[in-house]
C-alpha cells in the first residue's frame, strides 16, 4: 500500500527566509503533484513532476523529484506572507487505475 509522508507538519517562518518541505513515499512512482490549499478552499495545482530528476519553478517555489530516493522537495525562497497556506504532495499510484494518494500536508505560516 502506497503511503505518503510529509515533514514538517507545521512550519512557521519569517518573511525573507528560505525553507524546504519534504515528501517521502513508500512505493515506486514517477509522478508526483504538489497542491496548495487556502483555508476553506479547494486544492490548487502547483507542480506536476513526471520523471526522475524533474525540477519545476514558479516564482518563489521550486519542486524537485528523486524517484530513486522516493523523495520530493518543495523549496521556498525568500518567503512572503502570501505563501501562507497548507501544501500537499500527492503521488500517483500508477498502474491501470491511476489515483492520487495524498500526504499529511504542511501548514506554512509566514510571519512578517
Amino acid at each position, binding site marked *: 500500500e502506497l503511503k505518503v509522508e510529509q515533514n514538517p507538519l507545521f512550519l512557521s517562518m519569517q518573511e525573507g527566509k528560505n525553507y524546504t518541505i519534504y515528501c517521502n513515499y513508500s512505493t515506486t512512482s514517477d509522478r508526483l503533484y504538489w497542491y496548495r490549499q487556502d483555508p*476553506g478552499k*479547494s486544492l490548487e*495545482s502547483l507542480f506536476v513532476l513526471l520523471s526522475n530528476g524533474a525540477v519545476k519553478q514558479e516564482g518563489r517555489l521550486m519542486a524537485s523529484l528523486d524517484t530513486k530516493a522516493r523523495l520530493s522537495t518543495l523549496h521556498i525562497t525568500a518567503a512572503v506572507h502570501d505563501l501562507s497556506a497548507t501544501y500537499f504532495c500527492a503521488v500517483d499510484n500508477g498502474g491501470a487505475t491511476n489515483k492520487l494518494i495524498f500526504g499529511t500536508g504542511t501548514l506554512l505560516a509566514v510571519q512578517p
Partner: protein
Amino acid sequence: EAGVAQSPRYKIIEKRQSVAFWCNPISGHATLYWYQQILGQGPKLLIQFQNNGVVDDSQLPKDRFSAERLKGVDSTLKIQPAKLEDSAVYLCASSSDRVFRDGYTFGSGTRLTVV
C-alpha cells in the same frame, strides 16, 4: 473549460440523518473520484469510478456510504446514517484518459458538519 462542479457547498445535519452530495465532472473526463478531507488531514480517496463502473472503493465505509455514477457523467455520494466523525470536506475530482498530460482537477468541495 468549465471546472468540476459540486453542490451543495455547505451542509449541516444532525447525526443519524442522511445527506447526499452531487458532482459534475469536466466534460469528457472518464474517471471520477470522491475524497474525504477531515480537518487537518490530507484528502483520503473514498471511491473511484471509470465511466460508470467502480474501480476502487476499498476505503468507502459501505455500511453507511454509497455512491453512484449514472451514465458515466454525474455522480452522487450519500451518507446514511451520518456520524459525528463524518464531518469533513468531500472533494470530487476528475481526470481524462490523458491523465499524465492533463492531471487531476478538483472541485470546490462540500463541507459537511454533523452535529
